[in-house]
């Protein structure tokens, strides 16, 4: 249930300003998941991203789907994703989000960081046990 708490955090409050000031770092776990999703699936629109995230979490995470939109604009402003226009299955103009080259670099860096961090946490918890 680790994910839940982290994602609920980014859901409840826009973002911690101190965190956003760290420059190239991702604003939250949600951002990382969105990047990863686009990396795996290729260009998607907002609803599809939200659905995919829910599938991946397989019921372990309660996501308000709407919260991905603030994350998407944030990522777009950073230049990590770009948008193009597409038509949805319901025949509506929707934005299609795709990973940029800067975005995949960022994703790699963040994944590495995440792995280091979780390995560290795992080691510490393991040592205690």
């Amino acid at each position, binding site marked *: 249930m680790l994910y839940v708490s982290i994602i609920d955090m980014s859901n409840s409050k*826009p973002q911690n300003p101190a965190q956003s000031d760290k420059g190239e770092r991702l604003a939250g776990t949600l951002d990382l998941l969105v990047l990863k999703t686009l990396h795996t699936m290729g260009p998607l629109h907002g609803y599809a991203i939200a*659905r995919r995230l829910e599938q991946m979490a397989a019921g372990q995470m309660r996501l*308000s*789907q709407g*919260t991905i939109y603030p994350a998407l*604009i944030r990522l777009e402003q*950073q230049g990590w994703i770009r948008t193009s226009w597409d038509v949805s*299955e*319901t025949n*509506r103009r929707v934005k299609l989000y795709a990973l940029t080259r800067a975005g995949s670099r960022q994703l790699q860096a963040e994944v590495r960081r995440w792995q280091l961090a979780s390995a560290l946490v795992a080691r510490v918890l393991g040592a205690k046990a």
Partner: protein
Amino acid sequence: MTPRRLFHRVLALVRRDRLERELQGEIAAHLEMAERDAVARGLSPAEARLEARRQFGGVDQVQELHRDARSVRWLDHAARDARHAVTTLGRDRGFAALAIGVLALGIGATTAMFSLVDGVLFKPLPFPSPERIVRVWETPTTTTSNSTTTRTFIELVRQTRVFEALSAESQSSATVDAHGVPVRLTGRYVSADHFTVFGVQPALGRAFHQDEDQPGHDRVLILSHAAWRTHFGADPGIIGRDLRLDNVPYRVIGVLPPGVFDRQRARPLEEPASFWRLNGFTEQELSMGAHWLNPVGRLKPGVTLAEADADVKAVRARIADLMPPWKQQWSIAVEPFDRLLIGDRLRQAIYVALGAVVLVLLIACANVTNLLLTRSAARQKELAVRAALGAGRARIAAQLLVESLVLGLAGGVAGVGVAAVLMRVAIPLLPAMPFTADVVLDLRVLAFATAIAVGAAVLVGMLPAIRSSRGAAAEALNAASRGSSGAHDATRRTIVAVEVAVSVVLLCGASLLFQSLARLRQVDVGARLDGVVTMSVDLPRDRYPSGNALAAFYPVLAERVQAVPGVLSASIAGDVPLEGTGGENLLLPGREERVLVRFKRADHAYFATLGVPVTNGRGFTAADRIGAPYVVVINEALASRLRERFGMQDPIGQLVDLPALGFGPDRRASMTVVGVVGNERVRSDLRAPAEEVAYVPMAQAPRMQVKLAVRTRGDAAAAVPAIREAVRDADPGLALADIRTMDEIWRGSLSGLTEPAWLVSAFAVVSAVLAAIGVYGVLAHAVAQRRREIGIRMALGARRDDVVRLVMRGTLATVAIGLAAGVAGAAALSRLMQSLLFEVSALEPMAFVVGAAAMVLIAAAAAFVPARRAAGVDPSSALRSEG
């Protein structure tokens, strides 16, 4: 935040509507798809709708989060508030115009004054390393300064170690042929290093060479940019050409760049310097004891003023033996060049004016604050509604502050316009600006204007913002339309009292300055100045090579001018009243003691033309010429000095020893005192007591630069063309210059007090009017608020003057408090302008009475209208209406 992200977030402010639309579209599409999927899972359409919404979360919250993420929230709000403010102000045009106008006045005046202060006092002199430029003065006593002699200057050049360059400057003038018309130009004699001292390179041609200031090589000339444009058609081909100065050819080697030197004058009213030529000292000048050179130097890098001063003093001590005994104790001093340019009195005048204008700005702000308070009282309901709808206290305060910021910036923009006009109109009226003063509306001034506009906006908006945001919403909503609370009124009364106090300070200051000016105008100049016009004429050496030739020409010239219709009398003299004249030592035969006197050449018509009364003996006659016995006329101040010092009861017939100036080596002669005249003021400083003056006949001390003083019937200036014609008849090669009436010269000598007096009074009037608007506002408000009460009182039998008294009482108390505070403030502050005052104490009671009385009158006038409105309240209508 990365710069990229920041850029996008700021950009989002502008693209707000589009981004908002796109988000709506995305959300709608999202919900549709979610609904479709839910239906596919087997839910009913209504259930699907709910399910989609549930999964999505709150649409409003998402939108808010999106806005937070994409944009800079407070800026977004500010932009919205600004738009809102512009719309609101647009709806209330009268208020907006008044507030912006008042702010523009305050900001404009302050900005114009700042440009002056900046140009004169703050900006460094417009030369490279200006702190190294110094002036060297001889100091006969610790408080006087004097020009130096050729001998001393040469020893300074030879022996001092502290200067990178040293130049001796002295006045020069010459008649130059400009396209067939003789023009008399003023210029300077300087040393070859002169422009090295200032670090200025000619824009055309070259500077002087090191060896050019030797006799025989010194016939070269550098022109000012202005003179080159005005008189020589900006012709670049002038370099290398010969220009005849008083018929002597000078090779033009350079033209200076445009700028400061185009404004260089020796005296406020003088023409700016047009040319610079070299001082190749002649044998005669080398031996002369005359103090005629003003050294200006550039210190070597790293040399301090104190070191330079010590070095120069050491040189002076070493050469003391070369000086006549009575000069051996004199000293010499080094002074920064800028202190010479900006005298203490000018500095003080500027600070006083700046202080006055800052007070005006404060009053303007107070006034706008009052306007805003009145307005926010009227808007209490609007704000309460906003608060009830969830706007936080900070948001409401921010909104009000943004409104005043909009006002402030609008006032600032208009204020810069006001400043531009003021600088255009008022600055040329200030003659005593140093030539280096660059008074322009530049970026520095604009930055200043922006800063004070924002400062004023914050100052003005702070109080209403705090008050309004604090007002409880429920209370305001519940209150009937009875207007503002009592606390509001107290604030406004306090503000008005402050306005009155500050205005009284200014009015008292203006009153003090004007009383001083009146005293200064009453100073007896010892001459009749009306109807006299004066001008300079140079008689060139080639046409008038000897003293005899000069002396023979003076009567010819005077007679021609005398013959001009409308001319009552014409006189030739070395100097005219109030314009200064040299100093010399007077000795009694056989006595060592010296009396320093002002020395003046005058012809036989001088005393009559200028109305200087001959009180004893005689004036000069045509018989006092070369070859005749030397005679001298002294003024009463000198006569009484001789009586006190030497017990000389009747000076007539006594012998005194003075330099026999003229053509020839420096020598002294005994002269017979033939007359005593009234105390003519020979120098412009009217604050100093009358000086001792000795007059010698023009013909016995001839010189080439002379002044023509002409008394005319009627308008003196109107006679100038005919006088010019007559001078040309006498000698077609002569040119007139420095044409000024004695009245102009006299007004010039009041300068330094006139300008501050008028400036401070203008500011005082503006502030008093602003304070009056404040008084009016408070009183009008009180009347409007108490209409019902007044109506009831009148219905119960109150008379009109009871009503007037009732409304006036509070206001009068406010004004009285302001008056008391103002008088106290004026008493504390007037000392700061002590040095500008003349024969008036800084605590002169009369000035304070006048200042306070003026304020009372203005306040009473302002109170009149609302008071009459109160008296005119119709009880029945007042009682019927609710407000």
